[in-house]
């Protein structure tokens, strides 16, 4: 009887039921889309941060910024001999520079590793290689006039000019990252997958081997087994790595010892990657390191996330602030409308409920009927809302709008200061393009179903309360 009555009643009031269900559906769909987009934003942000950090890194330690040196001793200088014009040999020279020119002693890595709450710490060295190669030829003096006639100038010397000569050269700049091969679980290389060949072995601490980023390898036509020469040292490419985010930490990865030798930075690192024992204690560990290891800057994921700007940040704020409030407002409105419509439906059915009570139906049974109808309406709205929400989330994922994330664009102190291998301060803000997706989690669906039931119960509570208070004599008297 309960279900028959419920079904027939919902069919009779299908317009009102549709209004209630549609309102709830809209609210629930908004909640799903906003939640999914928020999750997508979080994922995109993680992706951005991961491209700098690698997996498993909770914070990085870099040298605290100091005033830039006034001289230009750190600028790369190239010297080439001028050759005669008929000498077409190529001259080449490369300079290996530490990115950001700020290094920490390798002993700092051990010191950071000893701090309480630190599970693991590993150093890395970011380098920038600038290679200039080409032909540099001398000009030749040509005397003016033909037929051997000499013209003289004011000083009586021979007149003429230098012709020809010059330079035809190519500048190639790429980044190199010296990775601690004994700690393969930490550092920027963890955000890349080896798509060809292999990664470093823990024994290859000083081997002349390299892993190339796939994009760089494609550009330079490197394959596993190719050789790469950096500052006259030849390395064998043992693997090709593809960055998960599409934005690699470096073009070339070398064992840390080799990178230190190339850059004359023996026992130096630019960044220390730290993994905390407890992800809930990151702030405490940060404070501990800053206190006990002076002259360093500690950057956590949260600090780095704060420096994310650009359309990703704007969209994230929009989803968090506007989206959440909008969906909440729509939900509240939908709940209210559902409640009022149910209550109004009870008013129109006073005689019906009065009659049922006169026949001996308990108040609880009548209330249950009203609540049941409202809950079924709510569930229908929920199902519609889930369908709409899934469609919305699918549409967002299908379109995959590209969002731009800028990291470290805050300019001065307090902002991003070298969390990643790009180096501290002097490095320009890093810009990444990430595609926004809207993954719908099981938790979101559970939330939606919960909201649908809650919506039905709220609506049912309005109507059920009225129905339960209905005294049969009053109900029948009112319609006489």
């Amino acid at each position, binding site marked *: 009887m309960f279900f028959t009555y419920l079904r027939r009643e919902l069919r009779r009031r299908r317009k009102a039921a549709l209004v209630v269900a549609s309102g709830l559906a809209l609210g629930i769909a908004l909640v799903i889309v906003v939640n999914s987009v928020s999750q997508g934003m979080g994922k995109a942000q993680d992706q951005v941060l991961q491209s700098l950090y690698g997996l498993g890194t909770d914070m990085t330690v870099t040298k605290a910024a100091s005033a830039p040196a006034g001289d230009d001793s750190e600028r790369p200088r190239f010297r080439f001999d001028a050759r005669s014009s008929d000498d077409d040999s190529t001259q080449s020279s490369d300079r290996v520079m530490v990115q950001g020119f700020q290094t920490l002693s390798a002993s700092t890595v051990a010191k950071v590793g000893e701090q309480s709450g630190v599970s693991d710490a590993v150093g890395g060295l970011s380098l920038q290689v600038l290679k200039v190669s080409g032909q540099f030829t001398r000009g030749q003096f040509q005397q003016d006039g033909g037929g051997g006639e000499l013209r003289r100038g004011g000083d009586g010397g021979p007149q003429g000019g230098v012709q020809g000569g010059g330079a035809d050269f190519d500048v190639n700049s790429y980044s190199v990252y010296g990775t601690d091969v004994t700690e393969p679980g930490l550092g920027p290389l963890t955000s890349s997958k080896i798509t060809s060949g292999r990664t470093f072995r823990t024994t290859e601490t000083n081997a002349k081997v390299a892993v190339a980023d796939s994009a760089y390898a494609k550009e330079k036509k490197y394959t596993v087994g190719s050789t790469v020469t950096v500052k006259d040292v030849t390395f064998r490419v043992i693997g090709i790595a593809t960055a998960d985010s599409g934005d690699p930490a470096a073009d070339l990865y070398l064992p840390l010892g080799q990178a230190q030798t190339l850059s004359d930075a023996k026992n130096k690192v630019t960044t220390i990657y730290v993994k905390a024992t407890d992800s809930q204690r990151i702030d405490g560990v940060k404070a501990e390191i800053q206190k006990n290891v002076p002259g360093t800057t500690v950057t956590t994921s949260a600090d780095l996330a704060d420096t994310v700007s650009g359309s990703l940040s704007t969209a994230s704020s929009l989803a968090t602030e506007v989206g959440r409030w909008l969906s909440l407002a729509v939900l509240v409105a939908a709940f209210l409308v559902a409640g009022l419509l149910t209550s109004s439906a009870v008013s129109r059915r006073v005689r019906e409920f009065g009659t*049922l009570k006169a026949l001996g139906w308990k108040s609880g049974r009548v209330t249950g009927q009203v609540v049941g109808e409202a809950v079924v309406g709510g569930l229908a709205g929920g199902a519609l809302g889930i369908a709409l929400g899934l469609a919305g989330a699918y549409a967002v994922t299908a379109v995959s709008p590209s969002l731009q994330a800028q990291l470290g664009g805050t300019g001065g102190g307090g902002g991003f200061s070298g969390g990643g291998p790009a180096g501290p301060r002097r490095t320009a803000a890093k810009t990444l393009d990430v595609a926004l997706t809207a993954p719908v989690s099981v938790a979101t669906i559970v939330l939606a179903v919960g909201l649908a039931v809650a919506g039905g119960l709220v609506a049912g509570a309005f109507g059920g309360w009225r129905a339960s208070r209905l005294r049969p004599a009053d109900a029948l008297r009112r319609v006489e």
Partner: protein
Amino acid sequence: MYELKNVTKRYTRGKDTVHALDGIDLTIADGDRLVIQGPTGGGKSTLLQMLGALDRPTSGDIVLDGTDLATLTEARLTKVRSENIGFVFQSFNLIPTLTAQENVETALVPLGIKAKERRELAADALKSVGLAERLGHLPGEMSGGQQQRVAIARAVVKKPKVLLADEPTGNLDEGTRDEIMDVLERLWKEHGLTFVMVTHDSTLAKKAPRLATLRKGRITVTENART
């Protein structure tokens, strides 16, 4: 069966107090057939509601088979209604979305009877009022007379002790009125019911063996020797 002693019912609306029933004393024996008549606002429907355990009096006793309805809780009154009292209303009061059979079943729901048995009992009740062919029809698909027959079937399906009818022919034409009255009288006799009916219809009142007239909350009972 029914023993009413000094029953009063007052309604207060703002500063005004209406004495719907003013010291009613009435006895209705088992199997009795009582017609209540009187002008509008005289207290007829209020008295019927008291007899039907739909409302409690302001003062006085309403004893049904030894139980004073005036002192029962709402839950107990509900139980009394579900087991002992059948109602027939002027406007039929059928659930518009339920079929004739389902409408009759609603009276059996509070008794906890299983669905299959409910359906059978409802079908039998509808057959007894001449609606065997209309089990699956909705109220909107039936005439006023047929709807009232469904309401009568609903009132008697649970085999109550008392049948209370509030102007059961008030919305019907003369021909249909007589048909309905024939059905009610037949069931009254067949089931040995105590039958109390409120009516404005003098023709029906004249046929009643006992006639109670309510004016301004006071009752006068006359026995009709012709019936």
